């Protein structure tokens, strides 16, 4: 359903990751009119960037894209991408007023066919945030092949206003005069599905991230392994060589008071084991070593998945990595405390992956009054054991990683839970808008 400035909705869903998508579908299938607001250019959140997903090794795009397609054509769902929430206010009569800003894309969405001719024409190259800076993109660009909507956008921060794209576009949909638009909408209930942030490994200088090109994050590895990958092969970014001795550093930025994050991120053990399995397939000659404190394979089928990785020959070493240094040829030396022997050991690797953890996205705090957070900045769950999806505000529900680290299956279940409560809430508030 196109937006066209429509004002009234049953539910406002903030965030178009897997949790937001799943919430929106659940609400819409029960006849609620939903406005789904995503601040990024495309729906899909982190999940659409992943390669395959544990423990079933389904291809992530194959799970996400059909769901997105269903959202995109659902008669009860209106989608706004590239849109910020400015402020949500609860009004006395149990409804919410939200001010939102749809940012200019400089492309007319409905006319863009996604032909990518503008991309070819654009002379500007900048790091591609959707490939986690592994490769470049143009200033006029489509985020990635399976983006939704799959339309172009002009990155005004980097555009040189040469007008090449405008000339190249066969449908004339590029429009440099576009401006941000602000709207006010009203909804009876709100679901916050604003997701999580990844730990920034620059905060741990001993890991050399940023200095050594062959130290990468797990999300960069996801991109290297994904079907829509940048190099069509797993190569190390430093020199394009095929790595043959890869190390994973678990709990990077988690369970670590020195970086202010004492909790466990709950997903990184498993995604590292998954990547290790995928690497064994992609690079049959490579050795993969996982340095861990504890392996947390607790979910359905997870322990079996861990055992499978051991069976495939992934090397698990119980040890805490102290520092990583680079040698002349871009190889890396990893210093770790071997828990068995109680001493520090050096090991050479040619690619190191930091299994960075989950941090709260505490943006909602700025968006809505009365929002309370827990001691780790995740959403406060007001009635954890009765209505886990209830936030500190009546009528505002929590889906996915907004309330804490979660994998995809748990995010999906929590989205179902939030949607159920939201429907119930809407039913009991008998206001006709």
């Amino acid at each position, binding site marked *: 359903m196109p937006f066209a400035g429509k004002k009234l909705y049953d539910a406002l869903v903030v965030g178009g990751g897997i949790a937001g998508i799943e919430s929106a579908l*659940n609400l819409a*299938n*029960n006849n609620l009119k939903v406005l789904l607001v995503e601040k990024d250019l495309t729906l899909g959140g982190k999940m659409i960037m992943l390669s395959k*997903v544990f423990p*079933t090794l389904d*291809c992530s795009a*194959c*799970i996400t*894209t*059909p769901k997105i*397609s269903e959202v995109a054509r659902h008669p009860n769902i209106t989608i706004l991408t590239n849109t910020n929430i400015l402020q949500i206010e609860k009004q006395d009569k149990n409804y919410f007023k939200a001010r939102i800003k749809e940012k200019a894309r400089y492309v007319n969405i409905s006319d863009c066919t*996604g032909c990518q001719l503008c991309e070819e024409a654009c002379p500007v190259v900048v790091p591609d945030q959707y490939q986690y800076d592994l490769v470049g993109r143009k200033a006029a660009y489509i985020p990635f*092949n*399976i983006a939704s909507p*799959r339309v172009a956008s002009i990155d005004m921060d980097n555009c040189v206003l040469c007008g090449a794209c405008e000339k190249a576009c066969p449908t004339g949909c590029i429009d440099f005069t576009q401006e941000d638009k602000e709207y006010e909408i009203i909804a009876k209930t709100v679901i916050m599905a604003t997701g999580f942030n990844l730990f920034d490994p620059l905060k741990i200088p001993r890991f050399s991230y940023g200095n050594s090109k062959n130290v990468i994050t797990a999300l960069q590895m996801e991109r290297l392994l*994904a*079907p829509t990958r940048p190099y069509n092969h797993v190569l190390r970014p430093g020199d394009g060589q095929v790595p043959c001795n890869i190390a994973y550093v678990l709990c990077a930025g988690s*369970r670590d008071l020195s970086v202010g994050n*004492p*909790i*466990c*991120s*709950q997903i990184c053990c498993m995604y590292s084991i998954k990547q290790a399995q995928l690497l064994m*397939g992609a690079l049959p000659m490579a050795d993969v070593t996982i340095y861990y404190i*504890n*392996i*947390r*394979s*607790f*979910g*359905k*089928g*997870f*322990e*079996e998945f861990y*055992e499978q990785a051991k069976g495939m020959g992934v090397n698990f070493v*119980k040890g805490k990595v102290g520092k990583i240094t680079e040698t002349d040829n871009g190889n890396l030396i990893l210093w770790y405390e071997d828990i*068995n022997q*109680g001493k520090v050991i050096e090991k050479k690797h040619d690619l190191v992956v930091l299994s960075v953890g989950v941090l709260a996205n505490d943006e909602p705090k700025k968006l809505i009054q009365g929002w309370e957070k*827990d001691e780790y900045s995740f959403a406060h769950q007001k009635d*954890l*054991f*009765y*209505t*886990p*999806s209830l936030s500190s505000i009546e009528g505002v529900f929590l889906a996915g990683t907004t309330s*804490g*680290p979660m994998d*995809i*299956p*748990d995010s*999906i*279940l*929590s*989205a*179902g*839970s939030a949607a*159920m409560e939201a429907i*119930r809430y809407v*039913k009991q508030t008998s206001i006709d808008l």
Partner: protein
Amino acid sequence: MKQRIGVYICHCGGNISDYVDVEKVREAVAQNDGVLIAKTTMFACADSNQKGMVQDIKENQLDGVVVASCSPKLHEITFKAVVERAGLNKYNYVHANIREQVSWPHSDNKAGATQKAIQIVKAAIAKVRLSEAIEPLEVDTTQAVLVIGAGVAGMKAAISLSKMGTKVYLIEREPFIGGRIAQWDVLCLTNETGKELVSRLYTEIVSNKNIALYTGAQLVDCKGSIGNFTAKVKLSPRYVKETCIDKEILKKAINACPVEVPDEFNFGITKRRAIYHNFPAEYPQTAVIDMNSCTRCGKCTEICDKIDLNMKEEFLELKVGSILVATGFDPYTPNEGEFGYNVIDNVITLSQFKRLLAFSEPGKLQWHDKPVKNVAYIYCVGSRQVDGNNKYCSRYCCTATINTALKSNDKFPELNHFHFTRGIRTYGKQEQLYHNASKSGHVFFQSYEDDPCRVEHKNNKTTVKINDILTNRKELEVEADIVVLVTGMVPRSNNNISDILKLPRGRDNFFNEIHMKLRPVETVIDGITIAGACQGPKNVVESINSALSAAIKTYSFVGKDKLMVKPEVAEVTPDLCKWCDECTKACPFDAIFKNEQGVAQVNETVCKGCGMCLPVCPTNAIQLKTFSDIEIASMIDVLANEL
């Protein structure tokens, strides 16, 4: 015969095209009889391709469509919806699986994989050529739901469904509701006790007109299918009338009972009578007589006239549109001698220890009249088994143990805690508890996977020995006053639910969902959903989330008065039937009956299209719609000719 067929071959972003030459497949089938369009696509399921397909179908008036991609389990529904959107009947769509059946298993042989893919796609084309448009069957739905199990998941689901205006029958096999949480005094990440939580849920349930709660209620039979199930429920009597409200008299009656049996509520570490209560805030608040141990001596009836040993069991027949299963878990029961269980007197399970902490007076924890100071916990008992069948991690137990140990010190400050772990798994925010325990002087050891710790009892002393990882296999030992086996979760025992409802179980023996991410609460039996720990280990919050997800799904089945169901069912040609009765014997769903004309007839809404009746019919009078003999034969012809 379809003559305007569209064929789409998917790269699956490399999942297929890395091993199958999809362009070659396209070329090989493009000239096939009836094929009008043959295309390859990066992701057939992506929105852009779906739109393209709709356009192709409309512009070229395609009359049949084949997509060669992943397993039909994943996306057959997706593509059927696409052709429907383009105005084509969805039974003119045929799915070819060239990922799970080709690219993944044959990654070592690209030429062979490509050849096999060609054959599979050609067979699908042969089938679609003969395909016929059929319409889904419409059934009236009963707008009521049966929820099985009144633990936290079942109760939450029942409450949510009732608030949507749905009639809910909530049946609980035990005489009291609450499931396992009723037994826990201490829960993690909250100060609420299990008892308080149950009483909140109970209050909401009994005050709700839409929920009918039955305790002592067991499913004994179930017939029908989505939209219209008929469930038969056996109600065991309590033998104590609800009008029994005089607590004093009841107490005397209970004390008069001469029978003593282990009390399951306390996991057998205390005794109860044959007539018993669970705990002061039990729900419903009426005592019950356990007829398996009652000797019918009549002593209690002499004291209280509200007791009636002659109450009879009753049967209920419930008509519902959908069933939500929330039968929960049992704590694993260790084998005789497993870490000394049942052999060494002071070895007990975590469940027993939690009850012991709950009912013991503050400040003097005792076990069999001896004071307890040192507590040793042995983790992963019955989970992560190296030799046994339970390969899985039970998820809740590391956190539950540490939390129990931490909170025990509020009541029993003298306790010291020694944890014999296999690597602590306090995932997420629960990590804070592990941190707190380490800070408060709890001692943690970790054993090697192949070298578990040992419990020994000598000279009246029980010791736990471990070759610890942190000290490079040096043997360490702790003398313990009580050894707590941290037992994992297993599915509820003596449960005939899966047989009655024909629900499949996974390798871990828990109920299986269809797909963890696409259809996480649905089972292969349409209209039956699963919630809580019966699907796999979960803590309370996770159980509630899954319960509400199941509730919303269930509501989508019963929220409307009509439902569309699959028409891929068996069909009898009456002229050919000689009524030999073989088909009714072969049908696992009782879907076939003898009609007034004396021949076999299929009850279309009950038939699941499994095809069991087809091969047994001596006159070939039964055909399965969309899988008719000529369709299958045409596929075999293609496959065989290619060889």
